[in-house]
């Protein structure tokens, strides 16, 4: 593997991916789609980290991404458990309808 990818390319891709994830999180109404968009944002950050690690010749970027992926796995499982419990009660996943705390 040759580290000949210009950093600008990587950052542009990461930024575009993050923006798309943000768009999904802002514009979608189903709880699971919002969650998926959050995952996309996390992966955009991963890409940027690995890009910088590769540009600086250090493996720390990969280590941090390793931790992020593991944490994302933990978070996804707890998030989906919450989602399942919520769905059982409310029979809907539209976040506009889950408004019990609204005054």
């Amino acid at each position: 593997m040759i580290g000949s990818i210009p950093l600008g390319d990587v950052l542009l891709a990461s930024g575009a991916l993050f923006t798309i994830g943000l768009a999904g999180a802002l514009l979608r109404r189903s709880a699971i789609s919002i969650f998926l968009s959050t995952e996309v944002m996390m992966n955009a950050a991963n890409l940027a980290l690995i890009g910088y690690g590769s540009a600086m010749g250090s493996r720390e970027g990969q280590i941090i991404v390793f931790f992020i992926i593991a944490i994302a796995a933990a978070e996804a499982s707890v998030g989906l458990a919450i989602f399942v419990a919520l769905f059982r009660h409310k029979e809907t996943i539209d976040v506009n309808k889950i408004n019990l705390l609204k005054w």
Partner: protein
Amino acid sequence: MERLVFDAAAALTILFAGLMVMHPHPVKSVLALVVSFFGLAVCYVMLSAPFIAAIQVIVYAGAILVLFLFVLMLLNVGEETRGRERPIQRWLSAAALLVFAGLLLGLLRAHGASAPLSFGPLSGDVAPLARLLFSRYLLPFEALSVLLLAALVGAFVLAQREKGA
């Protein structure tokens, strides 16, 4: 040549992430995301991180998204319906997104591409990664296992049916 492959993989990733965001049916959008993550794994390989690419496929595409699919299929979640929501919400979101995208592009143009490749290329070996993980990052590694255990127990408890006790 590597740059071409990276650009193609990144384009694939972004395209399918966009498809994921736009598709109303949650199962199809998860599948689009799987392809997107696969493209991301190819990007990682191009950036001299084959181990992380494998972990991405095994954990993210192969476990987390399968978990999403399971939940979606078991709960029979249908398509997202058009709802009565105030259009101001959508306009504000779109405006916020445009501002954010503009900020990001501006930052990139000002600073991004000027970071020099100051060191040589990384090899694809896993051993230096392991050495780093088990020496400098040992404490976060152990903390991570505790975190995973907590998540395991938490998910199990949360997803249980209430038994009235």
